[in-house]
């Protein structure tokens, strides 16, 4: 900032210094009639002038002005210069007291106004040359310093040698003539360097013509005023003949420049229209290629494409038809919606858009036999918009001209359509990735919610080993488990699965947690808790959503468990076979499914087992109650895996009491499926004792519905045999054993639902 200011003032100081120096010299060599005196004066004047000029050029280098701006500045300056002259001619005599001659100028009274006039003229000269130089260099990358500088030097020399045209040196005036001719030649050469007019718009070219004519007149006038024998001219001449000559040459340069400019512009005028159009096309394409990389929604993009298409092609109306959007017009320009629809339909009848590989032209005469639009168009031009062999749609252009597009225009439109296709493709991809990111962010929130809803740590219960495993799926699956401290040191536990995924599932989980927490302390048995929860959930749950849940209350002292199941996967109770109470599991079949059992039995196999809780085995082992899987008897007719492991279990510990897995599946449907009294009516409670060394395993369907590469389910049966043959000690070991088996089973198949395991082992 500071530096900049100093630079600015340096120019001013230099000017003032130059003036003072000149004034001083002028006073010193008053007579000026000696050759030496004149030479010193003129040469020093010339040196100061060039010093000022180079300062001025350097100072204004950074200023960016269009050529027209420079020309207008020249116009104003010339106007000022002429005005100054006229003013002096009228009022000058009041300032100049004495008769104009060398001697008279010695009086200080006359000296001051003369110096001022000279200073102004000096400034004008500097200004002229600065502008001419900038015009000379406009739109030039290669510097041709020599041409312009040579011209300046010759201009200076012509000025200096002009002294020879008067008085005693007249014999040598051919020097002056020679320099003048060279200067004029150089000026003509330099003036022809006006390539920039080619790139001007037609309107600007017309402006240029007018300015040129005005400037030619002004400069001619000005040049003439410098030559007449007025007092103004006298004053200048007697101050410095060379400078006056130099100033006159500058005015000549101006005149030559504008004469050449005028004719060049005139010759460029016929092609101006074409240049205009090409410039428009190029800038449109350039603008568009920039747009491609910006964020645009499809609508905005369509608008841009059709607008630019009109610019480029000179067509009268345009719109885009995207495929897969029932050919709905987008970005309609220059025509009404109804007309565009009518014409689109007509074109659609004429041709199948998807088969268009290159632009096609249609005569609309036939269309107007039966239809009307506000304005009549002669041609429709269809351009396919496709990228990477993917067709996005067609660009429709309507032309009122009876002549269709020429080849250049067609090529250009085709190129443009290709650009457009890339832009559309980009915007499509961008939208997809934005949507993806939005979903991912939503899932993040849901995952965080789920983490906060699940208990931070497991309850520590003397005599019990409690373990929980939760493996979230990428999409939050809505699994939930929790423990509640109840009265009389009892513990409530729940495992649940909210249908649906993502953030909506997470919200329902949060509600469920609140509901269960409050009812757990208010109600004394699990059935009452779930019944109350179901009626509250009516307000929260969408009709499509439901929650499967299993709620149990454990009395740690006695091992008494009371369990209700609302549509959830069964709990697996690993129990001693001798302690089995058959009446417990026998009762729980609903009447409906008995009929189904019979019907389904013919299919045999694994699926039925889960339907009937071991119904498939009834044939093999009639004595076993349904819902029980016996270690030793499992061998018959089953998969070899279970067979071997069961046998191994027997070999290893023949004397230990036989353990069996009981499926605890009391009747009850999911929460939120029905809000009448039916839920309470059907919900059954199951009571059993968890004895020392026994385990209760609960899980969500993420476990049994885990898929392998063959799309087979992991299944409850596999989990049961795994549990049966598990010989480890702690709940933790069992949990990792199950997780390991699940992982092995799944192989490369990704997990798509949450996996939750709840293990309660009585030590």
């Amino acid at each position, binding site marked *: 900032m500071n530096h900049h200011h100093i630079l600015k003032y340096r120019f001013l100081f230099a000017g003032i210094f130059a003036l003072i120096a000149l004034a001083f010299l002028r006073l010193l060599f008053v007579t000026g009639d000696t050759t030496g005196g004149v030479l010193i004066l003129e040469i020093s004047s010339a040196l100061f002038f060039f010093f000022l000029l180079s300062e001025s050029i350097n100072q204004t280098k950074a200023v960016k002005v269009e050529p027209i701006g420079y020309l207008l500045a020249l116009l104003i300056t010339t106007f000022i210069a002429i005005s100054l002259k006229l003013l002096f001619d009228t009022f000058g005599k009041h300032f100049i007291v004495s008769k104009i001659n060398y001697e008279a100028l010695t009086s200080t009274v006359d000296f001051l106004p003369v110096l001022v006039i000279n200073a102004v003229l000096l400034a004008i000269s500097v200004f002229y040359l600065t502008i001419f130089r900038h015009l000379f260099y406009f739109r030039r990358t290669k510097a041709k310093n020599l041409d312009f500088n040579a011209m300046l030097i010759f201009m200076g020399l012509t000025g200096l040698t002009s002294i020879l045209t008067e008085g005693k040196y007249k014999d040598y005036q051919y020097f002056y003539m020679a320099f003048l001719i060279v200067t004029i030649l150089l000026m003509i050469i330099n003036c022809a360097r006006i390539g920039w007019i080619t790139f001007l718009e037609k309107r600007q070219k017309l402006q240029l013509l007018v300015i040129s004519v005005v400037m030619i007149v002004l400069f001619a006038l000005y040049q003439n005023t410098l030559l007449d024998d007025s007092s103004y001219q006298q004053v200048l001449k007697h101050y410095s003949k060379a400078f006056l000559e130099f100033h006159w040459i500058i005015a000549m340069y101006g005149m030559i420049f504008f004469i050449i400019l005028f004719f060049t512009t005139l010759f460029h005028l016929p092609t101006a229209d074409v240049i205009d159009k090409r410039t428009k096309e190029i800038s449109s394409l350039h603008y568009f290629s920039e747009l491609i990389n910006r964020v645009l929604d499809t609508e905005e993009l369509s608008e841009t494409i059709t607008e630019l298409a009109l610019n480029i092609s000179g067509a009268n109306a345009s719109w885009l038809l995207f495929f897969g959007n029932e050919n709905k017009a987008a970005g309609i320009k220059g025509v009404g919606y109804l007309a565009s629809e009518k014409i689109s339909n007509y074109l659609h009848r004429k041709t199948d858009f998807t088969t268009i590989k290159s632009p096609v032209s249609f005569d609309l005469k036939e269309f107007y036999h039966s239809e009307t639009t506000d304005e009549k168009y002669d041609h429709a031009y269809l351009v396919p918009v496709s990228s990477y062999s993917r067709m996005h749609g067609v660009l429709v252009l309507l032309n009122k001209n009876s002549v269709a597009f020429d080849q250049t225009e067609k090529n250009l439109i085709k190129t443009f359509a290709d650009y457009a296709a890339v832009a559309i493709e980009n915007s499509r991809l961008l939208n997809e990735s934005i949507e993806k990111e939005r979903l991912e962010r939503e899932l993040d929130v849901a995952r965080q919610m789920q983490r906060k809803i699940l208990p931070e740590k497991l309850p520590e219960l003397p005599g019990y080993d409690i373990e929980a495993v939760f493996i979230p799926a990428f999409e939050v699956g809505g699994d939930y488990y929790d423990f509640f401290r109840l009265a009389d040191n009892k513990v409530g536990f729940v495992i649940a699965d909210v249908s649906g995924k993502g953030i909506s599932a997470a919200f329902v989980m949060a509600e469920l947690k609140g509901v269960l927490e409050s009812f757990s302390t208010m109600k004394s048995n699990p059935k009452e808790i779930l019944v109350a929860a179901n009626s509250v959930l009516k307000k929260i749950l969408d009709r499509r959503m439901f929650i499967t849940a299993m709620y149990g209350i454990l009395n740690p002292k006695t091992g008494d468990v009371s369990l209700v199941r609302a*549509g959830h996967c069964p709990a697996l109770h690993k129990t001693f076979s001798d302690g089995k109470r058959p009446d417990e599991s026998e009762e729980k079949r609903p009447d409906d499914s008995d009929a*189904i059992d019979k019907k389904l039995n013919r299919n045999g196999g694994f699926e*039925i087992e889960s339907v009937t809780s071991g119904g498939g085995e009834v044939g093999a082992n009639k004595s076993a109650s349904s819902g029980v899987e016996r270690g030793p008897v499992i061998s018959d007719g089953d998969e070899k895996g279970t067979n071997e492991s069961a046998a191994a279990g027997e070999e290893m510990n023949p004397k230990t009491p036989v353990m069996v897995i009981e499926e605890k599946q009391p009747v009850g449907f999911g929460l939120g*499926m029905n809000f009448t009294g039916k839920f309470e009516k059907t919900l059954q409670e199951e009571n059993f004792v968890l004895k020392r060394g026994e385990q209760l395993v609960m899980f969500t369907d993420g476990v049994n519905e885990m898929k392998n590469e063959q799309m087979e389910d992991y299944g409850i049966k596999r989990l049961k045999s795994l549990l049966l043959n598990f010989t480890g000690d702690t709940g933790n070991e069992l949990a990792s054993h199950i997780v390991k088996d699940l992982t092995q089973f799944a192989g490369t198949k990704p997990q798509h639902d949450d996996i939750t395991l709840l293990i309660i082992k009585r030590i």
Partner: protein
Amino acid sequence: MADFKSGLRDKDEFSIIDLSGYLDAHTAPELETRFTNLIDKNRFKVVVNLKDLEYISSAGLGVFMAYIETMRENQGDIKLVSLKPSVYSIFDLLGFPLLYDIMKDEEEAINKFKEQGK
């Protein structure tokens, strides 16, 4: 993976929807459209034939839950017939048989409708 397909047949006042393949969150909207169209046409007695249905997810189950109330309020119902054992087990685990008529075949379902109409 078997694609999901749904078809609609009319048998007198009963509408029969045939489902095949996988009914999950992606394919559920198709079934929803079937139901809303039926409601628009005041056809509330619906039998859904699940003979060729391979799998149903919770989102698929949700579709039945969303529309059964409307059907029942208008003296209709949604009855499910010809379930594969694997599909039945999913319905069963959730307790659907307690709330829905799940029957052997279309004939049985239509007879039940006629019986209920009396």
